[in-house]
Each structure stands twice: as C-alpha cells, then as structure tokens.
C-alpha cells in the first residue's frame, strides 16, 4: 500500500528527485514536536518557556524535564531545513526559467500566508492572541527577508548567519523604548521573547532564527545539483559535524559563561541540559543542530534501503514531505477542543496521565500519517494555486 505511493512521492512537483534524508530528519522532529504539543495541551507537569530573559522555571522531576527537553530539536531543525529546502526550491525555480521578480514575489506571498496562518490557526490553538509571534510567523518573516537576502552570495549569508548565532546574545535593544507598546512588541519580535505584556507576546524572535535559516540556506545551496553518490558521501561529514557540535555544547556548558543565556547552576543532568530556547543561545543550537546533523546522517545511511519507504520511516517521510500541513492539523487534532471565544492562557478541561498522553500521541500520529498521504494526493491532483503555499 505504502510502496504504491512511494514512486509517486519521491519526486517533487517539478519532477526533480527529492532529497529524502531531509524529509526523514524533518519527519522525526515533526513527530517529536507532536509529542511536545500533546503533552503541553494535556499534561499538568509539562513546562515551556526555558530561558525567557534568563529565567529557568523548575520542572517537577527529571522525567518531565527530559520529556520536554527532547522536543528542543524541533524548532531549530524545522527552521534550518526550511532554509535548506528554500535554497533548493529557489534554484529549481530559476533553472526552470522563472524570473527573479517572480521568485521574490512568490517568497513574499508565502511569507504573508504563513503570517496569516499563525494568526488565524496557530495562535488560537495555543490560546494565544492573534498577535502572538510564534514559529510559523517567524518563518514567514524569514521568508520575506530571504526574498531579498537570497541575492547575496552564499558565503556572505553563511558568515552573517554564523556571526549572528555567535553574537546575538550581546545584542542590546534598550534603545527601543518599551513604552509605547509598539516598542515592546518590536523588541519581542526582534530578540526578546516574552509573555509579560499581553497581547504583545512571542517566543520566536527573528534575529537568531533568521541566522539558523541562513545556515540551512547555505547547506541547501551546497546540496543543490549534487548527485546521489555525492550525497551518500556526505554521511560521514554530517555525522562528524553532529558529534563535534555536541562536543562543543559540552565545552560551552562546562565553561558556563559565553554561549549560555541560562547558566549551569550545578552538576545534575538537568543543570547541564537546561539551556535557553527563548531566545536560542549557542549551547541550545549546538546541541540541537548537532542532533539534527546526526539525523541527516542516519537518513542518508538508510535512504537506499528497501524498507525505507514503508513502516515507521515511511510514516516519518510523509510527515517530512508535508511539514506545514502536519503542523496546522496536529495542533487542532491534539488540542481536541474548539477555539476559545476570547484568547486566554490555555487550560485543559482536565489533565491526562503520562501513559494516556503517550497513547493519544501515537494514535494521533497514525491519523496524521493517513491525512498527510491524503493531502499529498490532493496536492498532486490540484497542484495550484493555494495548496502550493501549505
């Protein structure tokens, strides 16, 4: 059943072969992200908000910390690979003969669609106001930035991205007044995630995340036009980069100074792993992007196998091929309640225990898998116009 759809889905709408190891890595983090959200919706001891202004809210125990910590891979991988896929798709569009202006307009439109989706579908799912600046809105703005920034040489984008990632913690936005509210909101959107002044709230500031997308863009340009053999040869570099990145994470946490927006306050596992996600500090990005590199290496390692398109990896691939559709649907599937008439901090009608939540997550993934396959079919039947944006 799955294999009949496989041959159809391994090519993009333009007929070019997909880089399936990217779909695989993205699929893994989509599934993990689903866990984070179902847990956030239904578990009493689920926490978020690590690192907002250096704060470190306590977790009830190590288990709940780790159940949240594992989801840290999601946003960096999601945004990094969005940059990678963006670079590849822009190159393909240009090769197909599309002109620069049309590509720019396409990216701006896509960015605006994402901003609309964040306000209309994503924010209400979390019980946030439409002004909430979340990951989808952040990617939307990054796409608009890249509609122009893409004209810069890849090396310049790579250097700028590295400089931002390594230096954004020194950024001082105090010259922007926090009264009136627009000043506050601007700081939230640019670099200072906060939930302190409702409705001017957000968790995914543009400055650090556009740099993560920039790294992904650089990788995408590097991968474009590579043969299957050359891609296979990247397994080792990806694995080594991943291991080196995680080793660098250990050094940064050990030194407990530069690169840590949340200091290591002791020597327990939680102390070592408690890093700042909002905004993402260097330690956070080293750990998560290092993990992502290992996922990409694993994807390359198994992508030629017979069973790759079936079973669990087939399911992950279908998630990875439809990230935005998955994102929008999974939120409401796991929320399992209508939107609130007035946005308010989300509180479930009752709490679920850990086993029930895990079961809900697993069943939800199967439902999402079928929905993703259905959506792919729909996209093939009606490739234009609106479905191309989701």
């Amino acid at each position: 059943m799955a294999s009949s759809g496989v041959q159809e889905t391994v090519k993009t709408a333009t007929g070019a072969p997909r880089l399936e190891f990217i779909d695989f890595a993205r699929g893994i983090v989509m599934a993990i992200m689903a866990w984070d959200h179902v847990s956030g919706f239904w578990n009493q001891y689920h926490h978020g908000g690590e690192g907002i202004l250096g704060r470190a809210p306590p977790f009830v125990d190590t288990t709940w910390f780790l159940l949240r910590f594992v989801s840290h891979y999601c946003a960096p991988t999601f945004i990094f690979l969005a940059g990678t896929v963006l670079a590849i798709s822009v190159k393909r569009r240009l090769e197909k003969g599309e002109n620069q202006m049309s590509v720019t307009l396409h990216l701006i439109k896509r960015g605006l669609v994402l901003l609309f989706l964040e306000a209309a579908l994503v924010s209400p799912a979390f019980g946030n106001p439409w002004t909430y600046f979340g990951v989808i809105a952040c990617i939307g703005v990054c796409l608009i930035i890249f509609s122009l920034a893409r004209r810069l040489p890849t090396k310049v984008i790579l250097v700028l991205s590295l400089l931002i990632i390594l230096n954004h913690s020194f950024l001082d936005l105090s010259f922007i007044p926090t009264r009136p509210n627009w000043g506050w909101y601007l700081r939230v959107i640019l670099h200072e995630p906060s939930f302190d002044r409702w409705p001017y709230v957000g968790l995914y500031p543009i400055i650090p995340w556009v740099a993560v997308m920039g790294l992904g863009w650089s990788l995408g340009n590097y991968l474009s036009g590579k043969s299957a053999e050359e891609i296979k040869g990247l397994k080792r570099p990806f694995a080594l980069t991943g291991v080196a990145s995680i080793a660098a994470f250990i050094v940064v946490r050990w030194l407990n100074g530069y690169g840590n927006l949340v200091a290591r306050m002791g020597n327990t596992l939680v102390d070592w792993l408690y890093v700042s996600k909002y905004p993402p500090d260097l330690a956070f990005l080293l750990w998560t992007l290092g993990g992502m590199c290992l996922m990409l290496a694993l994807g390359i390692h198994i992508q030629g196998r017979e069973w790759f398109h079936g079973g669990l990896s087939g399911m992950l691939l279908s998630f990875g091929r439809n990230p935005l559709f998955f994102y929008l649907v999974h939120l409401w599937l796991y929320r399992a309640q209508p939107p609130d008439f007035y946005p308010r901090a989300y509180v479930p009608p009752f709490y679920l225990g850990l086993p029930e939540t895990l079961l809900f997550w697993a069943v939800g993934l199967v439902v999402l898998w079928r929905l993703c396959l259905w959506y792919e079919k729909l996209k093939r039947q009606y490739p234009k116009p609106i479905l191309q944006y989701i």
Partner: protein
Amino acid sequence: MIHMAALISPRYRDAAIMLVVVVAVTGFNIWLHRGDTPVGYQLYSANGFSFIYPRECTLREAVVIFRYPSYWLGDMQGESSGEAATVMGVVWEVEQAGGVPATMDEIIDVASDYYHITGVGFDTATTFGGKQVSVRGFNVIVNDVSVPGLMAGWVSPEGRVFVIYCLSPGRGDDWLTFQLSRMMGSLKTEPPPKPR
C-alpha cells in the same frame, strides 16, 4: 619568492577568510562584554558596594533587621513571585568581635522572631569568586513546608561584613550555592567616603 596565498587553493582560502572574520568579530565581542551583567541578573550599586542578584527579585530596604542602608550598615531583601519564588537578601555591618559567624547568628536571631527557622548548620569555609567565605545552611518553615536556605558571609578589606542569603522552595543545594556564588562572587566594595 612564492607567495603563501598562491599555495592555498581558492576554496580553502575563502574558508580561512570566513573563519578569521567570524572568530575575530566574536572574540572581540566576548572581550568587549566580559564585564557585563549576566542574563537573568541585575546590578545593585550604592552604599559603597555593588553586586548582581536575580533579575526577578525586587530589592526592598530594611526588611530583615530594619537597618536603612548606609555605607557601614544596612539590609535589603528581594523576592520573586511564582511557583519557584526566590528570596534573597544582603545584610552588611561593621565587623564585630565574632567576625562573620557573629553577623550570621545575629541575622538568624532577629529573623527567628518572625519566622520558624530550623536546621541551622555548621559554618563551612569555601571560595566564591576568589573570596574566602563562610557558608551556613538553614531552613525556614513556611505554611508547614520547610524551605531550604543558604547564607554566605565575607569580610571586605575596609572591615565590613557582608552576608548574602538565598532561599527557594523546590530547588536543591546546588542551585542555592550557584546563586550565592554568583552574588558573592560579583560583590565589589569601595573605600569609605572621606569626611568633607
């Protein structure tokens, strides 16, 4: 003479230039900001001393032993709200005959009039940020819950004793020690003002 650059392929040369730019800019920034207040903390600076303390705590004067701050003595306490409320404070006074332990005893005596304090431990000597300090553990009973606390005392060169304490429910000794080491480690004092 063969120029070195000619020996390096353009691919590696570009990578080397990129690396140098990134390392130089980042290194300069780290050097430039080496004395910055860490994220999550704010700086207190008055009465001849300065130190950093958790950003979410708002300092109030004369809370514990009712001494309005001046150069030679004073006390301040800050509290944060929320599920992991943190209480921290600093008491300073002219060094007494008993040194740091005497000031610590005094704080516990005065605080015992208002709070149920148990489990006062022995003093242990340690180093925070290059300062030789005495550290003492204690517990405060709040609503039948025992909240662990830690205090550290140090004698400044001008003869003032500074005791910084920190309490937080649900946090371990590591966390308290870390906060104390940050606050005490950042403590800097100035010489007394000269009479005009």
